């Protein structure tokens, strides 16, 4: 995932090529915007403004529409995520089984807000709704790896392991 938040002018032509590629994958498909945005986010970890503008030119969708969509859907990010992503499940089962305490623990240990990234860009904290492991509630994922039946005491270990991994 990309760490840089600004894109230099000589990267412009790369952007152009990249967007053209994504667009050509979805050419002729009505209503392809969200799928293209998914592809862009998969590549960068977020949707950089420059790429959105290029996309606007390339597919003839106004930047207004693109931002309407980007800011509506929680899945899309406008700023680069952290190096490591922690998602704590706040689905019903996890909530009832102690997810709020986990979130508080992560927040206080990393000094990060929900949906925010630590100052050193190491960690990003998200709160998600049901990751499909209710049987293991409360659950969280760290860089895609699922941890089940987590207790607040486990958090410091999980963070340390992630840092060293």
């Amino acid at each position: 995932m990309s760490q840089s938040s600004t894109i230099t002018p000589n990267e412009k032509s790369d952007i152009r090529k990249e967007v053209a590629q994504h667009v050509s994958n979805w050419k002729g498909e009505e209503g392809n915007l969200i799928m293209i945005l998914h592809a862009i986010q998969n590549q960068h970890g977020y949707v950089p403004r420059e790429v959105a503008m290029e996309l606007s030119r390339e597919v003839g969708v106004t930047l207004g529409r693109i931002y309407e969509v980007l800011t509506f859907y929680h899945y899309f990010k406008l700023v680069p995520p952290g190096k490591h992503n922690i998602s704590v499940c706040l689905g019903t089962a996890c909530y009832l089984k102690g997810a709020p305490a986990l979130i508080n623990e992560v927040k206080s240990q990393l000094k990060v807000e929900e949906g925010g990234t630590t100052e050193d860009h190491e960690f990003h904290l998200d709160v998600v709704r049901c990751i499909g492991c209710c049987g293991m509630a409360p659950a969280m994922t760290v860089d895609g790896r699922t941890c089940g039946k987590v207790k607040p005491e486990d958090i410091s270990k999980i963070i340390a392991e992630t840092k060293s991994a």
Partner: protein
Amino acid sequence: MIKAKINNIDIEVPEGTTILDAARKVQVKIPTLCKHKDLLPTAACGLCIVKLKNSPKLPRACATPIENGMEITTHDSELFEVRKSVLELILSNHPNECVTCGRNGTCELQDLAADFSIREDKIKRFVRDIPIDNSNGSIVIDFRKCVKCGRCIEVCQDIQNVWALSFLERGINTRMAPAGDISLKDSPCVKCGQCSAHCPTGAIIENDETETVWKALRDENKYCTVQIAPSVRVALGEAFGYPPGTNLTKKIYTAMRRLGFKAVFDTNFSADLTIMEEASEFVERFAHGKGALPLITSCCPAWTDFMEKMHPDFIDNFSSAKSPQQMLGVMAKTYFAEKMKIDPAKIYQVSIMPCTAKKYELERTDEMHASGFMDVDVALTTRELARMIKQSGVDFNELPDGEPDSILGEYTGAGTIFGATGGVMEAAIRTAYNFVTGKNMPAFNVEAVRGMKGVKEAELEVAGHKIRVAVAHGLANVEHVLNKVREAKKAGKELPYHFIEVMACPGGCIGGGGQPYGTDDDLRMKRAKGLYNEDGEMKIRCSHDNPEIKRIYADFLGKPLSGKAHDLLHTHYKARPIYQR
């Protein structure tokens, strides 16, 4: 036809009629906040809910077509309570700032609060603090006052196709914002002001410059002059209780003098001047093959801005003639100054426009300083003028008639109709006909280009030539017309049009973004009628027959498209980025 009952009153309406419109037919008024007559329902506010017999659902009257056999209740105690609760909720998310608000007294939300006897803040107020955007000089957005009705966005995206505004985020954080979350100045906004005209609240208002004008009027070193645009005269009255469309030109002249303006001009005069230049241009291009066809009108600054941003491939097709506002400004600071022996540096030129984009036009390019000074110093909208008159202590309704200053004041019917969609085209045709044939048209009215249809097309016979014209108003209608031209060009076929008129605002300037509130097609038609009536009653109905116009060419400009005319009355266009960021 659909037969149904509203509050036990039998009705019969055409299929597709909404419950809201059907109710109006039987004098039942259902409260609304988000619905505007110009626009498709956004169904956002929830105030217009009604009851149906045998259904637990409460449909929205604004968005629900009436069906055969429906029995509708629009008012009962339950509906009242629910509506009141919804209104209280909306107000709980709105600043309580009526006394300092630009819409105080003309606000739809304020009216509803009054009508529903809302007397206290029962729900704790929560207003997200978002700074005001006054970056573009034409309109000012106070996001806190936005009730998320979506009207502005619908206008900007669907009617104007500009996409300068959109909703961002969601839930309680939903906010109306310039597209791409930038400042309005950096957005594609073309300053048409339609958003402000359609907003029910004070969230979008014109940039109020009345204070600046008062300062100038009080400044003894300044010689303040004023011009009044065609469409202002048939709309201003609405702010003083006159029926829409009442032509108050002469009262306005008097009011201007009472406000302290030393000279009162009429933009109708310079509209005639614009026609002289533009019709000449057309004849050059059409009859002599000098320059690109179709010729496209350029007196609407929102349209020129739009074209420079979205359709720069048509720059060569634009008429280089300046708009009447700018022509009058430059004439005032050159010709008038010379004649009256006034130091043009002292002249302070104010224009009264139906339009927020005219504020932007003042500094559009360096050519707006053709006189050596800023040709027009301030542009006020009709709404601002109404307020100035009220501030001044002038009892407008009782004023006697007055006259303009003759030198830049006399006008023809052609100048008047500039204010309505199709008017520029009609006026230009009257003069072009004369330039081509040497004779005036047998009948002046060109009905084919009048009316509120979004795109009007016609083929006119001028001395054996067939001239194909198109008139579009509401910027979303432009694309269709331009694409037809593009396609023909690409296929190497004959051009579909020779002459195109575009006005950004639906209805043209009579429906301008700075006009009194409440504009809908009904009102547009009434205002347009006011203009066409004046035209019909005028002795002189062609720009080239205006004696003052003849004089200005004889005394000062030479002939249309002369070198001097070019320096003073013409301008250029360039491609501009859609987004500054």
